[in-house]
């Protein structure tokens, strides 16, 4: 067995170690690789920028732990942006696996920026029946969410006193790992003309581009790359940009392995041919 053949039959555990290092190193020591922003993400950013201070934004956490690595970074970036712009945030959850995540994120970010519960943001918790909930918000928030997550009647929450339905909300952003954006488009946008943006996983993003063309979504944040772009736009690097470093490195590593494997394969083939001749 020559060196090329040995390389072709390398113990795959070496590959595993390199993949792990390719993720761990940038997480601990971010490389800060350049990320260029794209129009779909810029549009979400601009939609938030355009709102007058004090206009409530609804952020719906419609995902569960399985897609959390991709969706939490963008949720955090959007929350930071809203708080920085003085836009009160209403947080809802349509996915049964989401409340814990949403609570943790809203707690952390509100402490970080010093947002006051009930005035700068409110957490309404999870409600069963995605489409029905989206529809009923169009009639009246107080019907679909009589109390917040902590069982405080929302009539007693200063922020919610000003909000009746979509008419009082500047922008809805749904963060979703499944088909929730479809329901938001069909019921909040189509029925009530609500301005809508979405954050989805990288794999889903392609499916939602058509909604951008038709204007049913004002913007779209796709996967860690989208989160990284948003972090760049608000100038607050975090998990998105760090994760993007790791993703880039692993991508390039996989491509490199394919190339090296094929070069070695070529040499082995040539050696075999020579032997045969």
């Amino acid at each position: 067995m020559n060196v090329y053949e040995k390389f072709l039959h390398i113990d795959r555990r070496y590959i595993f170690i390199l993949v792990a290092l390719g993720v761990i190193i940038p997480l601990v020591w971010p490389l800060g690789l350049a990320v260029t922003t794209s129009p779909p993400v810029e549009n979400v950013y601009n939609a938030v920028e355009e709102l007058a201070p004090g206009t409530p934004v609804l952020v719906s956490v419609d995902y569960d732990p399985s897609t959390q690595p991709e969706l939490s970074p963008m949720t955090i970036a959007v929350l930071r942006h809203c708080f920085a712009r003085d836009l009160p945030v209403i947080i809802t959850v349509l996915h049964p696996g989401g409340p814990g995540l949403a609570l943790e994120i809203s707690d952390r970010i509100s402490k970080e920026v010093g947002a006051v519960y009930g005035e700068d943001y409110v957490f309404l918790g999870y409600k069963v029946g995605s489409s029905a909930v989206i529809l009923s918000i169009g009639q009246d928030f107080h019907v679909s969410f009589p109390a917040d997550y902590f069982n405080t009647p929302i009539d007693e929450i200063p922020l919610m006193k000003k909000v009746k339905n979509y008419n009082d909300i500047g922008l809805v952003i749904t963060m979703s790992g499944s088909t929730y954006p479809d329901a938001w488009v069909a019921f909040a946008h189509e029925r009530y003309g609500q301005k809508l943006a979405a954050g989805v996983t990288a794999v889903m993003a392609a499916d939602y581009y058509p909604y951008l063309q038709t204007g049913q979504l004002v913007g779209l944040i796709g996967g860690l790359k989208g989160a990284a772009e948003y972090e760049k736009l608000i100038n607050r690097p975090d998990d998105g940009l760090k994760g993007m470093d790791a993703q880039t490195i692993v991508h390039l590593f996989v491509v490199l392995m394919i190339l090296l494997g094929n070069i070695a394969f070529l040499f082995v083939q040539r050696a075999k041919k020579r032997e045969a001749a």
Partner: protein
Amino acid sequence: MRRELPLAICFIMGIIMTVQFFIPHRHSQWLFDNMLKWLIIVLTFAMILGIGNLVKLHIQKVQHRRRDWLYSIVALFGISASLITGFGWGIEADSPFMVLFNYVQIPMQATMFSLLAFYIASAAFRTFRARTVEATLLLVAAVIVMLGRVPLEGIVGRWLPDLAEWILDYPNMAAKRGIMIGIGLGAISTALKIILGIERSWLGGGD
């Protein structure tokens, strides 16, 4: 009773659910909504059999001290933990059952899932070899799309991500649609054979 009746039930249900699709009326909608729930309830009853089977196998392993029987005790412990917490304290957000789910089941499931990152690298290295023209096409398409999805615009320009997107949107979609139409026909044909009782292996044997 043993073979004809189940076949007849299968036939009738198949026809009803096919026809139901075309009827928007309230009654038809009611049937559809309920049917899905009913079928999962039937499945839940079957789960008693499934879990019973699992428990039986592990108890046997422990009884006969078969290889790895100690781990069977772990499995039995896991089942009991879920069932006892779930039926004892319910499934509200902070119940012991959900704690078990969030800190035991979810982390392990997510970790299993994340093994894919490693396997994708090893599979790419092991199998992406330009042996034939077809294999080369697969390899080249994969590399282009992979490179198109990392932020390299500054270095190689927009054309790479654009080309990646074009491959995904056209040749890739064409292949997918072709496969899907074939699958549609194969699935309809199989379903039809089951409804008509031509395909009846699900009945098993005996009389």
